[in-house]
Structure formats: C-alpha cells, structure tokens
C-alpha cells in the first residue's frame, strides 16, 4: 500500500525551513560560479533570503499546530523563536560581510553553514518529539562546529572548534542516553506522550532521576551553564567574532527553546527533580559568571563569562515556570530576545575595531576610545547598560520580568542572588567604560567601519533602546506564545 504523503498544508507550514535549506544548497552552487573577489555577493543573497523569511514569518506566522504526526509543533512558541533566529542570522550576516574580508575567510560555505545552523535551530525550537529536537540540535551543532573552526590558518580558531566539538559530542552522547532511558520509561519519544507516561511513574524511580539528570547535563552544556560552561570562554575567544556573536545569542536561545520545550512540556510531572537542579545551575552561573569576568583582561573572554551569567538569569525564568508557568516562561523568552541584541552588539563593536593586521580584544586596547571615537564609545555604553540591566535599556525590562517571575513563584533567594550579581556585573562593565573614557590612549584604535556593519549596529542600538522604552509589543507576543504551549 502506498505510504500516504504528508498533507500539503503541513508541508507549507514548514515553508521557512524549506526556504532556507533550498537557499543554502543554492548558495553552494552559486559559490562555484562566483569568482574569488566577488564572494561577498553570496553574503548579500543570504541576507536577502533571511530577510524574506523573517518578513514572511512576521506577516503570517505558521500556526498549524502539531504536524508531521507530532514531529513538529508549528505553534506560537516556535514562531517566536523562528523570528528570533532569523533576526540573529540576519544581523550575523550583516556584521560578517566586511569582517570575513578582514580575516581573509570570505567563502560561500560560511553562509551556507549559517543557514543550516538556523534551520537546525528552528527544528529544535519547533520539535514536538525527542528525535526531531535532537536532530535539530545536531544539525545546529555540526554547522556551528565548522563555523567556529572556519579560520583555518589561525590555531586559536581550530583549537576552539576542537574543544567545542569534543565537548559537544560527549554531551550529546549523555543527552541521548538520558533520552533513551526516558523512552524506556514512558514508551514514547513524543513530548506530550512522555509527559503523560511520566505522570504515572513515582518520583523516586532511580532511572527517572538519572534520566532527568542526564538531560539536564545535556542541555546545561548547550546553554553553557556552570559547571558545564568551561568550553565557552575558549570557544568564544577562538571563534571568529561574528560566529561568537551568533553563538552567544542565537545558539544559546535555541538551546533555551529546546530546554524549555523538553522540561516544561515533557518532564513537567517530574518537576520536583529538575527544579532544584536548574536552581543550582542558575545560581552558579550568575555568581561564577559575573565573578570570574572581573579578572579578565580580554574583552571577548569577559563577554563570554557575562553571557554565561546571562544564561543564569534566563534560567531563573525556567525555574520560576515550575510554579507560575506563563510568567516564568514569558520572562525567560523575553530575556533571551532582549539579551540577543545587547550581546551581539558588544561583539559587533569588537568587529568594528578589528581591521587588517590588528585584532583588538584586550580591554586595554580600548583606552581613549571615548575621545578618539565618541560615537562608538557611546554605543558601547548603551550595550553595556543593557547587559548590566540599567533602566532606559531593554536589559532592564528583561531583568525586571525575570525577577518578577522569580518573586511571584516564591524563589526569593534566587532573585536576591540575581540582584546582587547584576550589581557585580555593573562593576566590570563600568571598568571597561572607565578604560574607554578616563584613560589615555596607548595604541590609537583605528576603526574599520563598513556600511553593513554600521546598519547592523544601528539596528541593534535602536532595538535595545526601543525595547527598553516600548517593550509592550514583544511582551504581548511572548505571553501569547507561551499560553499556547500545552
């Protein structure tokens, strides 16, 4: 008997993913045809596709419910993350157009792999089944491993990639083992079915406990929560800055999406087990992330530690979701969206300062920037304000929403830790601002502004300030998308 082809409506619901995959393949072909010095055009094509997908998703987000027999849930939640990933991808392309020339790695595969990673993320966010989430995860990870090691002649990049790869492979092994055990316990890999299966089990079933721990470790690595964070500083420092920006924002958001989906939907009945685990991970990430960042001399490593701490803040939302479901999840989601612009912004400012022959990432290299390039310094201040969570910027609203969730759900101690560590965070951000404004320039920082980079930066700054002042639109979108999550 013929195997029934999936109905057209379901296939159409996946149009963004399909569009991007086709585009990626097309780009590989175009790469053959373009000559060496016109490789940048591929970037513009890639940008065009991503923007097209973004606009399409914004106009009518695919709301087809659970399709492909439960493999994919095209609900608000997936749509929100699709938008987030596409924005991140677009910004990454914008900031890497000129950067790749500076680094001499302007090749078509870069954009193809970027698209592959984005598709992987979309599947992770939208996956309705362990299998599709895992495969999405692997697709994203593999492409990211390659992108990290893209600057082949620079040992740091390769070393970063190797470390990321080994840690990633090892952890996906652990995650799989956890998923296998869960499959054994509940007899299914579909999220809803697993949740139903788990509600029947008693909580002190050792296999369930161990499976939860394994899955927590698996996702913990992905969002670089302490103590599974050790790869992040090295990989962020080694990878090309545009990819670091992409990783610290989009990849982390994807991991958070997968994590929220798995834990809040599938493993919700066994919440008592993983609630404490994520609590510990969140607290450790916030404390260690911020404390170690103080002693850093390289700005990229400092931002790596700061992004580890931001993972902690987002986790507060997840932990809070166990008690106050909508408020907690909405907090986590909104925080990731808001944090995306700030962290990408800081990394793209680094790109602004790298130019042929001079790769600045020591904080001391920024001395005197306040006087030599006041506009750049001013933009830096806005991003740092957002990262530190100081009001007029979006970071503050993010932190506010997350802390509100924590207090509403009773995790007051976590909120206090969050509040105290964000004060510490403000300290090292302002130490950088101090170097910029109040110290004499030792080496004169020349900027290599390029139009796309300027456009990217512009978008990010405007987004950070606008989201700070008028977060209503995004907040409503987030609360809507979370409500639908069964």
């Amino acid at each position, binding site marked *: 008997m013929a195997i029934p082809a999936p109905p057209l409506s379901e296939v159409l619901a996946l149009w963004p993913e399909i569009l991007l995959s086709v585009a990626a393949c097309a780009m590989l072909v175009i790469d053959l045809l373009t000559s060496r010095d016109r490789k940048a055009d591929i970037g513009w094509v890639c940008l065009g596709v991503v923007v097209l997908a973004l606009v399409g998703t914004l106009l009518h987000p695919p709301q087809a419910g659970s399709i492909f027999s439960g493999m994919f849930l095209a609900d608000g939640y997936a749509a929100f993350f699709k938008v987030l990933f596409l924005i991140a991808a677009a910004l990454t392309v914008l900031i890497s157009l000129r950067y790749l020339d500076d680094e001499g790695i302007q090749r078509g595969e870069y954009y193809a792999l970027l698209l592959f990673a984005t598709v992987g993320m979309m599947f992770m966010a939208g996956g309705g089944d*362990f*299998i599709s989430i*895992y*495969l999405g995860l*692997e697709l994203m990870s*593999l492409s990211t*491993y*390659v992108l990290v*090691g893209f600057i*082949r*002649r620079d*040992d*740091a990049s*390769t*070393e*970063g*990639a*190797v*470390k990321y*790869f*080994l840690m990633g*492979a*090892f952890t*996906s*092994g652990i995650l*799989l*083992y956890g*998923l*296998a*055990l869960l*499959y*054994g316990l509940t*007899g*299914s*890999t579909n999220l809803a079915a697993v949740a139903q299966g788990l509600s029947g089990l008693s909580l002190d079933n050792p296999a369930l406990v161990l499976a939860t721990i394994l899955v927590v470790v698996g996702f913990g690595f992905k969002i670089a929560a302490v103590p599974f964070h050790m790869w992040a*500083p*090295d990989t962020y*420092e*080694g990878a090309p800055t545009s990819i670091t920006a992409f990783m610290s924002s989009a990849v982390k958001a994807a991991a958070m999406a997968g994590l929220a989906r798995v834990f809040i939907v599938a493993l919700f009945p066994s919440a008592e087990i993983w609630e404490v685990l994520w609590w510990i991970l969140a607290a450790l990430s916030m404390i260690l992330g911020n404390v170690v960042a103080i002693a850093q001399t390289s700005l990229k490593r400092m931002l790596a530690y700061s992004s580890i701490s931001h993972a902690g803040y987002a986790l507060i939302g997840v932990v809070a979701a166990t008690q106050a479901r909508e408020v907690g999840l909405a907090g986590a989601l909104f925080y990731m969206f808001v944090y995306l612009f700030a962290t990408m912004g800081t990394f793209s400012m680094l790109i602004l300062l790298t130019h042929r022959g001079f790769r600045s990432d020591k904080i001391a290299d920024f001395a005197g920037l306040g006087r030599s390039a006041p506009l750049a310094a001013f933009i830096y201040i806005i991003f740092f304000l957002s990262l530190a969570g100081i009001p007029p910027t979006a970071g503050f609203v993010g932190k506010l929403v997350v802390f509100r969730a924590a207090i509403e759900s009773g995790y007051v101690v976590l909120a206090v830790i969050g509040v105290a560590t964000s004060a510490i965070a403000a300290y090292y951000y302002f130490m950088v601002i101090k170097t910029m404004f109040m110290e004499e320039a030792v080496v004169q920082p020349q900027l290599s502004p390029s139009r796309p980079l300027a456009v990217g930066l512009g978008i990010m700054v405007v987004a950070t300030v606008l989201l700070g002042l008028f977060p209503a639109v995004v907040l409503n979108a987030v609360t809507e998308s979370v409500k639908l999550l069964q």
Partner: protein
Amino acid sequence: MPLSWYLVFGALLFMIGVVGVLTRRNVIIVLMSIELMLNAVNVTLISFSHYLQDLRGQIFTLFIIAVAASEAAIGLALVISMYRGKSTFNLDEVNVLKW
C-alpha cells in the same frame, strides 16, 4: 533474557567510552571512544524497543547512526586541520586559549 542484562551491557559500553574520552591523549582514540558511547546508547534504545514492542527505538537508532557518521566526518576534518596547524594529536598540548 531479561531486559536489564542488555541495559547493563549498554551501560558498561557507555562507561568504557567515557573512560576513553577522559583518559586518552590521542584525539583519534577520543573520537573512537565517543563512537563507543553512541553505540552504547543504540544498544539501550534497541533493547527498549524490543521489550516495548515498539519501532520508535529502532528508528531513533537509525538517525543516531546517521548523526554519528556525520559527526565522525566533521571530527576527523577538525583533527586534520588541527594537525596541520599544530602538528600534534595530543589534546593537552592544544591549550593556547586559557585563563
């Protein structure tokens, strides 16, 4: 044949893989140990699938094998580019990025 025997076999295989990853300096051996770990997961999945009379496990294993293959490909490519740069296989010599 009780299910737990297969699970024990899978667990042992997993642990050997973990030991291999943590102890061996040579990156190729580490990659092999990671393959071992994935195999262990496959065994566990298939034994569950057998006992639950359900195909999902096997399908999942199929996909895992596919992923493992691609992972191996990328891993070896990375190893080669590492070798080309640092001309060494030992992971503890690869520590330019630290502190």
